[in-house]
């Protein structure tokens, strides 16, 4: 669609991050609608992500029509988590001993997941590299 429009629109689309964020949001909107329509137990964002990947893969849209907008969204993604953190205000029971216990579970388990995942992949990586070098 974009490919057929004039060079001028294309150039504009490549420069405007806001317009590109709109395009990315359109994929999310479509994904959300599809999810609701089909009853898939997947978040709209994930369906939208797959749709966008398919469109990029079949070259329906060149990647430059989304690159700037996507980069901008990803660079400030942490902002979107900030309001959710304030949910702690509503859970007084998390303060005190139970809170300390829960926090310990989260801290230890998260560290374990990080270390185990990283080491698993790295060990496999070295193994395949050595294998590739040997053969």
């Amino acid at each position: 669609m974009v490919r057929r429009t004039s060079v001028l629109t294309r150039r504009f689309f490549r420069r405007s991050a806001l317009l590109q964020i709109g395009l990315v949001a359109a994929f999310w909107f479509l994904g959300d609608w599809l999810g609701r329509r089909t009853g898939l137990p997947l978040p709209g964002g994930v369906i939208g992500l797959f749709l966008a990947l398919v469109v990029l893969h079949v070259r329906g849209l060149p990647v430059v029509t989304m690159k700037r907008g996507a980069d901008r969204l990803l660079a400030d993604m942490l902002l979107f988590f900030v309001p959710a953190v304030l949910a702690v205000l509503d859970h007084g029971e998390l303060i005190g001993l139970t809170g300390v216990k829960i926090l310990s579970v989260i801290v230890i388990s998260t560290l374990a997941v990080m270390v185990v995942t990283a080491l698993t992949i790295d060990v496999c990586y070295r193994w395949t590299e050595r294998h590739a070098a040997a053969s």
Partner: protein
Amino acid sequence: MLLQAEWVKTFWTAPLVHAAAWSLATIAFYLLAKRLYRRWPRWWLMPLAVAPALLMIAALALHESYGDYIRGTGWLVGMLGPATVAFAVPIYEQRRLIRRHWPLLLAGMTVGSITAVASSWGLAWLFDLDAALRLSLLPRSISTPFAMEMAGEIGGIPDLTAVFVVITGVFGAATGEIVLARLPLRSALARGASLGVAAHGAGTAQAHRIGQTEGAIAGLTMVLVGLMNVSLAPILARMVN
């Protein structure tokens, strides 16, 4: 004087004004925290820790409840939807790397997920937490929409799970860089997947700061690990109940 106070109160409680004020405050505190972090990059000055802390102080000072706050700023959390779609770009750009190394990523995601669920369950049991809390803790390392879906499925409290997910993300993102720097890692794949699997979106955002490849891999593994967990939740539910 009283009249003026009354006027201020009516103005302040008008939904649109209220939403705009809290949204602006949230964005402003975030930008401020980001600037602070750029100046002094210490883990405890992470924007995801500093901005909510400042907002919490403001909310407590103004006697504002979380319900009122989120009604005005929920749209910001909603932006996580488009942000998830945005990962299509880095994933597409790294498609060659992903196609070449997908067995590694799959191994990492499987082992990581098992570690997440098993260690949460074991530690919660060790600390003698009750069943509802224990179940709510299981899905914490996957992103919020998936985690809430999974918590409901296995009999946890989705609301509490959402809080645990956020705490996990904050902690993982805050310490990830330090932990990964201390491990003898050779590949960007390991760093990216580690953050994506352990600390979902917040970890992924942090991975994106470390590098392009790390960010793409983290985004991909975050999404796939979420999918994997949600689809395995019914089996897990039968195991824990």
